[in-house]
């Protein structure tokens, strides 16, 4: 199939940036979205042009590196799917596809579609440590964890930190990401000693990074490639309110 791509090009953080239109021909429906961009880039390199910069690593949907806003939807309209796992069979011949980077004041554009997500790292760092002995491996089942809690904690822990929640949020809030990290430790016995101080520190760091406030629109969880539940944000709010009301 033949496609028209409108891609955001920005040469460094000081550049103003602009949308540039490209034609890509003979795209196979079996290609992933990133492979389609690879084809475009190979051609651009042969023509002596600057290839389109985009983040990617595992291309298996588990690393959290890739991500772009495709036709106004973070990671494209396919649910529970990262950009690398989005396949061209979901598009049709002659489609015009708009491709933009995550838009957030806290995620400055490095180049084209690559944004700096260090703000997420600083939120994680603000969470600090958990009090567990770091010596030899503990005996199996020495700390019982209810199955339901283990499952919910694991669901939260599947967050890959891609940033789609921020990109999709009309308020540019990072609540779903921060909440996933707070929920996954907060549900486990090992996470209890620092549970409230961790929630408070991480929420304060999130606010300090310049993300917007949550108004419960639910756009984040709808685009999340890992299906982090909306309830995570309620759990974060509960832990945070407990911490600040003391």
């Amino acid at each position, binding site marked *: 199939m033949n496609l028209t791509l*409108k891609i*955001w090009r920005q040469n460094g953080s000081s550049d103003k*940036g602009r*949308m540039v239109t490209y034609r890509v021909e003979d795209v196979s429906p079996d290609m992933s979205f990133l492979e389609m961009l690879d084809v475009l880039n190979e051609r651009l390199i042969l023509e002596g042009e600057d290839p389109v910069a985009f983040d990617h690593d595992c291309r298996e949907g588990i690393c959290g590196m890739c991500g772009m*806003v495709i*036709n*106004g*939807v973070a990671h494209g*309209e396919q649910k529970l799917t990262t950009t690398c796992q989005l396949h061209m069979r979901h598009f049709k011949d002659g489609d015009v596809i*708009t491709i*933009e980077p995550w*838009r*957030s*004041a*806290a995620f400055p554009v490095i180049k084209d579609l690559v944004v700096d997500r260090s703000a997420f790292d600083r939120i994680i760092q603000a969470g600090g440590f958990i009090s567990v002995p770091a010596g030899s491996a503990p005996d199996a089942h020495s700390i019982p964890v209810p199955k339901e809690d283990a499952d919910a904690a694991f669901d939260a822990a599947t967050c890959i930190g891609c940033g789609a929640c921020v990109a*999709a949020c*009309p*308020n*540019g*809030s990072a609540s779903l990401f921060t909440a996933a990290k707070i929920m996954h430790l907060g549900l486990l016995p090992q996470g209890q000693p620092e549970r409230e101080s961790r929630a408070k520190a991480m929420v304060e760091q999130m606010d300090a990074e*310049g*993300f*917007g*406030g*949550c*108004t*419960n*629109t*639910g*756009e984040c*969880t*709808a*685009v999340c490639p890992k299906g982090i*539940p*909306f*309830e995570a*944000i*309620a*759990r*974060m*709010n*509960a*832990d*945070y*309110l407990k911490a600040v009301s003391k």
Partner: protein
Amino acid sequence: MAVTGAILVLFLIGHMLGNLKVFAGADSFNHYAEWLRTVGSPALPNRTALTIAEIVLGISVLLHMWAAVSLARRAAKARPVKYAAKRKSQASGYATHTMRYGGVIIALFVIWHLLDMTFGAVNPKGGDATPYDRMIAGFQPDRWWVALFYLVAMAMVGLHLRHGMWSAFQTLGLTRRPNVRRGLQTGAAVVSAALVLGFVAAPFCILIGVVK
């Protein structure tokens, strides 16, 4: 946002139930309005409870608006460069997207409503008429546009509460299970629909002449 919103929802429920007294006749309605002013009397001076309610509601409205404005300003700052493609909503919930402009419409409506029914400044009967007369005169067919404005404003209130009521529970961290959230979302839809119907009933019945 959540706490002030909850205060305002409680007020709306009381207000809606009070309005339904119009169907019980002029005496019942006027007596109810009088009772609001004399509740607690003679132990308390007249208007004590009413004045306290007015102060609490006034502060709630101001804090609710302040919270909304600061959230909107934070949102604008958090995304300085907008998307070129029209952002397609992926979450279900039309009501969510009406919160900000709907809130402005509701605020304008409240100003008109106070001028109309409380102070009588824009009411054909003026401020000296009985509450019942003011209400009947306010929604006569020759003033159909007033009734229409009330209907639009009530639709906005309904949408506002459709999102706002369950959202308050989420903000306060009380929706930690998916079934609790879904239950609250259904509850919000039912309560907001009941409120809208209750509020719309009086103007509509006056407009078509059922209540005179």
